[in-house]
C-alpha cells in the first residue's frame, strides 16, 4: 500500500468518524444552542479532510475544483445557518433578539471596556 493510498484511507475515515460523532452529539446534547455547535465540526473538519483526500487521489483537476466549491459553500452555509437558526430560536422565545432587560451576556463587559450601562 502506497503512502498516498494510506493517506486517502485515513482522511476518508477521519471524515466519516467526525460525521458520526457529531451526529451522535446532536442527539445526546439537551440544550438547543449546544446542539448547534456540532454542525461546525462537520462543515470544517470533515469537508476539508475529504477535499484533501480528493486532491491526493486525483490531483488538482476538475474533481478537486468542484470539491473546493462544495467546501466553500458548506463553510459559508454553516456560519450563516447557525446564526439564522439561533436567532430564529431566540426570536420565537423572546419576541426579539436583543438582550432582555437586565440579561447578563458573558464577555460583554470586556468588549465594552467595562461599560456598565447595558
Amino acid at each position, binding site marked *: 500500500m502506497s503512502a498516498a493510498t494510506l493517506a486517502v484511507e485515513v482522511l476518508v475515515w477521519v471524515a466519516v468518524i467526525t460525521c458520526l460523532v457529531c451526529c451522535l452529539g446532536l442527539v445526546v446534547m439537551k440544550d438547543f444552542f449546544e446542539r448547534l455547535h456540532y454542525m461546525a465540526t462537520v*462543515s470544517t473538519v470533515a469537508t476539508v479532510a475529504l477535499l484533501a483526500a480528493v486532491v491526493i487521489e486525483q490531483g488538482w483537476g476538475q474533481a478537486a475544483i468542484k*470539491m473546493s466549491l462544495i467546501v466553500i459553500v458548506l463553510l459559508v452555509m454553516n456560519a450563516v445557518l447557525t446564526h*439564522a437558526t439561533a436567532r430564529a430560536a431566540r426570536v420565537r422565545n423572546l419576541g426579539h433578539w436583543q438582550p432582555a432587560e437586565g440579561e447578563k451576556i458573558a464577555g460583554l463587559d470586556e468588549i465594552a471596556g467595562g461599560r456598565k450601562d447595558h
Partner: protein
Amino acid sequence: MNIWLTGSAVLLFALVPCGVASFRGDTVERLVGLEMAGMIVTLLLVMLAEGMSRVNFYDLALALALLAFGGGLVFARFLERWL
C-alpha cells in the same frame, strides 16, 4: 468496493441521529437535524462520486449544498415569526 464506497455506506448511519433529532423537540430544534442531514448527504454524494469515478456526479453534491443552504435559510426565517 473501494474505500470511498465503504465510507459512504458507513456514513449512511449518521443519518439516523439526524432523523431522531428531527422527530423530537420544538419546531426550531427539529430544523437543526434537517440542516445536519443536508451536510451529511452532501458529503455522501461526494464520496459516491469519487467511489464511482464519475466527476460529473460532483455537480449533484454542489447543487444539494446550495439548495440546502437556501432551504435552511428560508425555514429559519419563516420559523422566526410566522410558523
